[in-house]
């Protein structure tokens, strides 16, 4: 059995047929070749697969295909515009908020969801926003600093 889905990814309208038991993560990585979104645990514990769906940060491993019908989805690949990195991405580089980089796309998307709603977050709000994103090698301080510097209208 397949279902037809209509949704928007990184401002591009998509129509595709897929099986209803597919996860959003599978659709991104396998059907759309958007491998910037990572898989670290498959049960919503590590946050490596975080994307922004309808303005909220979600674990794409916990979203089933039918749930994305009509949704607007932003992945890490959608942050860069006109071959220029988003200043959230630039701040990650400036502050050294990247090491192995495997958690980075998820961190960026959690941060983006926060900043879209709350352009001037406190440090406590930043921490809460990335509390579901595990980093195993860099530590979190540089990531917090990078997000805090990216205040203001991020769109």
């Amino acid at each position, binding site marked *: 059995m397949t279902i037809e889905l209509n949704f928007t990814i990184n401002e591009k309208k998509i129509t595709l047929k897929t099986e209803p038991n597919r996860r959003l993560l599978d659709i991104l*990585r*396998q059907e759309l*070749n*958007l*491998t*910037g*979104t*990572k*898989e*670290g*645990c*498959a*049960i919503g*514990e*590590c946050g*490596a697969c975080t994307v922004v769906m309808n303005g909220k940060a979600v674990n794409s491993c916990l979203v089933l295909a039918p749930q994305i019908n009509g949704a607007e989805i932003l*992945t*890490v*690949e959608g*942050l*860069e515009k006109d071959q220029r*990195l988003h200043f959230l*991405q*630039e701040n*990650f*580089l*400036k502050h*050294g908020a*990247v*090491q*192995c*980089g*495997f*958690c*980075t*796309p998820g961190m*960026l998307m959690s941060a983006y969801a926060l900043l879209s709603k709350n352009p001037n977050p406190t440090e406590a709000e930043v*921490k809460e926003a*990335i*509390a*579901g*994103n*595990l*980093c*195993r*090698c*860099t*530590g*979190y*301080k*540089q*990531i*917090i600093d990078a997000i805090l510097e990216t205040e203001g209208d991020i769109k």
Partner: protein
Amino acid sequence: MSSRKIIKSKYFFEEDFVESLAEVPVEKTEAWASGAELKVVGKPTQRKDGYDKVSGSAQYTFDISLPKMAFAKTLRSPHPHARILNIDVSKAKKLPGVLEIITHQNTPKIPWYFGMSFLFDTTLRFEGDEVACVAAESEHIAEQALQLIRVEYEELPFTIEAGQAMSEAAPKIHDTNILRGRPDTYERGDIEKGFAEADVVLEETFTTQTAVHNTTEPHCSVVNWDGDRLTVWDSTQGIFSVRDGIADSLGIPASHVRVIKKYMGGGFGSKLAAGKYTVMAALLAKKIGRPVKIALDRKEMNLAVGNRPDSVQKLKIGAKKDGTLTAMVHESYGASGAYPSGAACSWPFRTIYQCPNLNTIDYSVYINAGPGRPMRAPGHVQGTFGMDSIIDDMAEKIGMDPLEFRLKNYAEIDQVGNAPYTSKRLHECYQQGAAAIGWYQKRRPAGSSPGKIKKGIGMASQIWWGGGGPPAYATLKLNRDGSATVIAGTQDLGTGTYTFIAQVAAEVLEIPLDNINVILGDTGVAPYGPSSGGSTTAPSISPAVRDAAEQMKTKLISGAAAILEVPERELSYRNAVISAITDSEKKLGISDVVRQMRERVLVTTGLRNANPEGYTINSFGAQFAEVEVDIDTGKIRLLKVVAAHDVGRILNPLTSDNQFHGGIIQGIGFALMEERIMDPMTGKTLTTNLHNYKVPTVMDTPTEIEVIIVSDSDPLISNTGVKGIGEPAHIPTAAAIANAVYNAIGVRMKSLPMTPDKILHALFG
């Protein structure tokens, strides 16, 4: 071409000294002097791999996808100890989409675990031991097929605790349950005499838990055969080690195996060698004639691909009233898991404090659990916790400040090797770290903090090898436009290898960083580089890169001399322009030299120099922690961690800071929450996902981490003067936190992790 020779090289790598013949330059390039004005090296430099990682374009092994790629999943033993009586794959094979299934029945007996077992053994010695592997059109189908494989097991008695496994009555996992049948021992001086001289003798037992690496990127490989040639993309810390392991396992020439790793999501010691999964995927790919991807899930990672062995450390130390240590004894045992892996943890105990009379005994014990693998400073993290806890107790017992006690017993030379250190600046770590945490102002007597939230400060010392050594190579190619490519057989774990290699080359050739491309992690194109472990990557590779760049500079000057008809000695090299000292009109840019030599590319290969003879190379450090302990809930909160270290020259403060923060936070995890828990009734592991196995989140991190580097260079080691950082950053954190907790509550925590239940139990019984 600079002249070379072959020497016997020996340096410490993870769990032991590695010895090999190594090609080295006859003459070492002089090290950059301490305090030398360098333009690029030592400056905060954004990562070369930065764009790829923030844009999402970085391709990890997990992201590799090839046309017609099939997917493999592994059937693993559900029992801690069992024999396979029969395997029936007929039902699984009929599942649509299943392509091939391999078991011990249809594969060669490939030796594994140092010849103690096979790729597929019929005796299974831990939950998670490999039974069969399925290739299918999708991962989902492969998983379904696993459930259709019928295996008849004969369950065997098991043992999952090292202390019990050492007893006569315990079920035997191998001929003996003790690794090599005997403990590792070390002794110096006269231990009886040492204790007789002591005014105070303390004896205590400390325990640490089994921890699991839990890298963010799963262990995974993608394999592809072109005829009899195999390409392997692997998430690995050692491309050459994986290449040789696979070639040996499959019985094919090493030249037929190419291992590639561009980016990886963490290793921490768990990805140093070829994995069974890679070889299984290669066998399946050969049979089905298609590329195969195999990726472990979180449960498999927590069962089968390594852990830090636990430890039970019985320590006894004696000191005079004036604080002089007179005797120290360490006796420990720890669980290797079902196959050889060192659980010894007495290395820091032997060397870091001055003591003439000292004995250590370490037993590594087989149990029915996943085999250990080096995990970020094997032995040192657990050993430092026990040692620095009892040292703190001794200081208190004789009424000395713990920091003064450590200074009193400062070891000026390496007591095991009886050799001087190339450099040791630990006393500066103590002084600067103490100042940063406010040691003398804030610290109160243990347990005297008022109220329900008690504050405390503690510290611990760090020693590690991390000097690296030869053989290690780097090839530099200079293009005719003056841009360069450096190719090295090392790999970047995310630690900044791409970036520092470019910095070193840019420093020597005085060309923009942006004009340097770095290619790592490909056995098909790179000269040999060692595995990235033991904090040796930067100390081993950076001098080879500098050597390659210096040779290139010499070559360019020689070329310019011929073109300008000016003797080499009368030419100067500045900002990538070579000019005659006496006639500034006579000059050439380096790209002009390459062009006029009519070569499109100039090539040099640099080597890591030999380590200096008669010296021991170690890194040192001290970490200080300030904590709050809530005695109602038993919860520990980190306020501040100060890390002061002697790690030679820092190549890039931006990436070095990453290493320190990451190492400290892993240390917090080990101190407070990370623990593999097994069920004694079933022998199964209960902590097989990231919900049960607790890794620190941002909420568990301290308000402040301050990193202080006391060293500027260690010029005796190499031309770059670098020591490694990865493991030093992590070693003393847990011990410092434990001592801070003692200072806060006045009760000694003897067991890690210090979970709230243990704190409450220690406080109220």
